[in-house]
């Protein structure tokens, strides 16, 4: 989909230096009622880079994404988004930052009481920093829904769609504001292989068309392998192996492995495959080939 001018979504007081990381965690620890969910997590993501987050159920993957959005406050450490420390921001200040992030929630989190069209329009209408003229909203909503091939569902309600369709609508809602950082929480969980592949193709398409930073939580190693080795070909609209000269994708796609709230691995696919750690190698075995 066509990208809007990025200046419209940036805070006036935050000129991001070109080299600055899009997202940086520094020794972040999160606990709920003294039960740790994240412990001393540090990593950095730069523009157009991808991070695949793997980890067992309950290892803190969702909490990590929510911390990046400022939905969860860390007990210690700091989170920097586009060069700004969001750890001590008020909710009002956070709204400005969040308009630069798109998030796909694990259970889609579409608003039950709103139609698909209203759901996708929601960030355009409600985020002050977006400043989308009201007459453009409907056009951009249609574009975003066309991107996920669900244009015909405009006036339906989320409860009338299948799980996979809801996931795609939620992706449309996450990308409609053309944010420079996208967070996907388990986009393929519980879906059949064909729908799962369609959704991964959408995510790769979004990454390659707009050179944005992507964080993706997944249970399926092959999702990560796909992100690390394939690119979107705008000429024929298909995925193709990203081999050969200038293959940045494999280099800029890194895997993070979480274990009980701790970051136990960060590296490329080759490094992950070479790991002998029992916990880490478990994730690559489930790929089945």
């Amino acid at each position: 989909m066509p990208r809007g001018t990025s200046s419209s979504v940036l805070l006036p007081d935050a000129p991001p230096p070109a080299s600055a990381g899009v997202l940086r965690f520094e020794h972040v620890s999160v606990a709920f009622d003294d039960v740790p969910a994240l412990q001393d997590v540090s990593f950095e993501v730069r523009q157009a880079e991808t991070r695949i987050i793997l980890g067992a159920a309950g290892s803190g993957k969702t909490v990590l994404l929510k911390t990046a959005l400022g939905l969860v406050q860390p007990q210690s450490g700091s989170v920097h988004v586009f060069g700004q420390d969001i750890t001590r921001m008020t909710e009002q200040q956070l709204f400005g930052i969040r308009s630069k992030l798109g998030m796909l929630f694990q259970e889609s989190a579409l608003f039950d009481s709103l139609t698909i069209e209203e759901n996708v329009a929601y960030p355009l209408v409600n985020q002050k920093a977006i400043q989308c003229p009201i007459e453009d909203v409907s056009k951009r909503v249609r574009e975003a829904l066309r991107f996920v091939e669900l244009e015909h569902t405009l006036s339906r309600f989320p409860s009338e769609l299948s799980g996979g369709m809801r996931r795609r609508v939620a992706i449309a809602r996450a990308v409609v504001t053309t944010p420079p950082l996208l967070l996907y929480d388990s986009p393929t969980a519980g879906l059949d292989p064909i729908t799962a592949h369609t959704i991964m193709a959408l995510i790769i398409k979004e990454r390659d068309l707009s050179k944005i930073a992507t964080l993706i939580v997944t249970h399926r190693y092959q999702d990560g392998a796909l992100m690390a080795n394939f690119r979107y070909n705008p000429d024929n609209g298909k995925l193709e192996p990203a081999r050969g000269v200038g293959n940045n994708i494999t280099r800029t796609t890194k895997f993070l492995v979480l274990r009980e709230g701790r970051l136990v691995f960060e590296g490329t696919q080759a490094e992950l495959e070479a790991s002998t750690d029992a916990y880490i190698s478990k994730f690559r075995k489930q790929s089945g080939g």
Partner: protein
Amino acid sequence: MALLEVVTGPILAVQEFYLLAGRALRNMFREPHYSDDIVLQMDNIGVGSLPIVVMTGFFSGAVMALQLARALAQWGQTGKVGTAVSITLVRELGPALTSLMVAGRNASGMASEIGSMKVTEQIDAMRALGTDPIQKLVTPRLIATCVVLPLLTIIADFVGVFGGYVVAAGMLDVNGRQYWTSVWQALGWDDVTQGLLKPFVFAFVIALVGCYYGLRASGGTQGVGRATTQAMVAASVLIFVLTFFLTRIFTSQLVSAS
């Protein structure tokens, strides 16, 4: 540790509740205002509760007339039944019963609605997409309840007095004109103030308790069910407790004034 939690748990809960109340109130004077949501909630709470409020109002008035007529008959004052019915209804029963009905219907409704949004991450999504859930969900419900509950109480009072009239005129052979005259003569301004201030206070209780339990819900659909029941129980109990204290304040004022 566990002992400490027994003490700190409720204190933290009360603190959280006050924080929510403070933020919901502050948002009343802050952009953006979701007037569509306010109208929607007024319709839901007001129009939706009208049938049960009318029913309870009518029958509580009728029952009061039956009971009080028997008591008054001992002194041969059955004709004063209008006085007794109107005072008990306007001062106590109208506000309390209406609020209890609305608490049963709407405090639980708010808790389940907001609770399911909470457990399906819709509240998080709201925050992620630039809206304050308190501004969008709590404040409109609070405003709507505060406007609608006193109105519902007035309706319940009228219907209740009418229910008393039906019993008095139909079953007790009280003269209809005498009944209505005694109703009007019995009511003073302080009864009306008291009768309208109570539902206004209860409106805060219903809306804030319902939203509070909804926003606190966790643990899937089971958690939503728990939040729903807790909200209804807490709101009803608080209404009873507050009725006592508000009545105490009003009666002591009267004593000191006279």
